[in-house]
């Protein structure tokens, strides 16, 4: 499904949540929507789901959404970050939501099983009695088996364990190539695995749009931690921006693209003084200064 936003605006009283956001998501595109808190991400997604109204033009496959939402709703699936706390039993929730899209319980249960949730075993439990992770997996199963052409995913794996997250990524990769995905997330692994394009919002304005790889080069950061001994090593680490922690480890956060060079220098210069080294990617992006180099 092709999504077109033409000068979308939204005000809440005196607060301008979105301002002239124009964007096109081609059919089959996979886009991450990122930005700091209050940048308008949730407002934009809620506008797409129809929970909010706004100014400007919104079209799905060229059809105006406000007037044709009834017909288009079946082609859109939304996975909220926080699962609702419904009192109804799990089976009722799954049957109800699945029934609206003509999905049999078994088909949803099969996807849920891949994510590690046994819907048959949980069918009588109140939905709200499940853990946050279980509820999120059930919502994921409902969305992934929906057959929708546009999937709106809001931090879809925030409450999932690493194994389930990996399965989720595989399931998304299995979706038809024509499925359009808009992902709200700051998680690096989600962005790396699920999208090829990044759109950045700041204060309700679209400030950057481009390839995911380019954005990650600029914004993905890693933490390098070093356990070393000797005054010479301490001086070298201090000069390069490392800070010493209470346990004696020195650490520094730096762009991922600079990590390899730093590790190379480290092993070349402090080879004998280093006792241990760890290097890990920071899991979440902290959107702030968006790169300005690429066209919007």
């Amino acid at each position: 499904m092709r999504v077109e936003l033409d000068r979308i605006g939204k005000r809440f009283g005196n607060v301008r949540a979105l301002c002239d956001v124009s964007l096109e998501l081609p059919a089959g595109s996979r886009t991450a929507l990122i930005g700091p808190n209050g940048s308008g991400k949730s407002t934009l997604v809620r506008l797409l789901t129809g929970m909010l109204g706004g100014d400007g033009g919104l079209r799905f496959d060229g059809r105006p959404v406000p007037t044709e939402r009834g017909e288009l709703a079946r082609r859109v699936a939304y996975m909220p970050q926080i699962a609702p706390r419904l009192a109804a039993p799990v089976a009722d929730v799954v049957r109800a939501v699945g029934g609206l899209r003509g999905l049999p319980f078994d088909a949803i249960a099969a996807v849920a099983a891949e994510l590690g949730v046994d819907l048959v075993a949980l069918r009588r439990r109140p939905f709200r009695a499940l853990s946050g992770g279980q509820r999120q997996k059930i919502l994921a199963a409902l969305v992934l088996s929906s057959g929708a052409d546009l999937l709106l995913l809001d931090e879809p794996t925030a409450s999932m364990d690493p194994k389930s997250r990996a399965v989720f990524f595989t399931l998304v990769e299995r979706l038809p190539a024509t499925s359009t995905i808009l992902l709200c997330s700051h998680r690096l692994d989600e962005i790396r695995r699920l999208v090829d394009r990044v759109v950045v919002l700041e204060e309700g304005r679209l400030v950057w749009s481009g390839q995911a790889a380019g954005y990650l080069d600029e914004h993905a950061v890693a933490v390098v931690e070093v356990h070393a001994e000797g005054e010479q090593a301490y001086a070298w680490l201090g000069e390069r921006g490392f800070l010493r922690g209470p346990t004696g480890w020195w650490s520094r956060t730096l762009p991922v693209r600079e990590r390899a060079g730093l590790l190379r220098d480290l092993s070349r210069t402090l080879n004998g003084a280093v006792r241990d080294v760890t290097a890990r990617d920071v899991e979440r992006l902290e959107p702030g200064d968006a790169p300005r180099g690429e066209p919007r």
Partner: protein
Amino acid sequence: MSTLRAEVAVVARLDLAEVLRSRWLVFCLVVHTALAAMFVLVGLRESGVVGFTGMGRALMSWSHALLFLLPLLALTATGQVVNSARDDGTLELLLSNPVSRAAWFLGTSLVRVGALVVPLLVAMPLMAIVGSLTFGQAVPWGFLLRGMAVSSAQLVCFVAIGLALSTMVRNQAKALMLSVLVWAGAVALIDFGLIGVMLQWNLPAKAVFALACLNPVQGARLALLSAAEPELSTFGPVGFFVANHVGAAGLLAIGIGWPLLLGLCAWTTALARFRRRDLL
């Protein structure tokens, strides 16, 4: 149409689970049973001594208890429906699926009305039969049916008003406060309250009588009490005047028809607002 019905059924099923889980239905059943038991124990027993037409005071007490409690039950059951559904994510989940706003509103309204009216329709006849078997008195079916119709109309009216409030106020605490204010206004402005208003603000008498007829609680009270002898002591001065002018059929129309009409207006307004406004 069948799509709308399917959507309403889905919403209603999920909301019913919510109502059952919160034990609201049980609470309503207990309240209605207690009210019906009061009617049976006091009303029927008294009617055995002085005859059914002589039970005015017991009937008045029961009617007042019923009419003070029912609006409060209905308003507290519905005054926060939209807000709590928004806050707990239910609204977001359902409306991001192929469920229209009208279907959500209709499904929720039906469940809330059902949760309040069905226990009433079960408890009242049941207690009347139990009382009849226990005390050997004939059940006054005519009055009972009138009582159930008037009470159901009250519930429908205040469910609709509660839903309207929940679409107007975004904050749950404010919605609850407004519900209580509406209830207090409705139960305060009956008879002696209206006389007080008239004296305080020098309102013309006809305006007070019109206000009495517009207040669904007062209308229901008159419709219930008209089953007994229309005495000044039970009806009160305002009710007595209205009863003498509109007659028995008019009182029934004010007690049943007017609350239903008012409820329909409130519900339609609420639906229009719910369909139009931002939901988050």
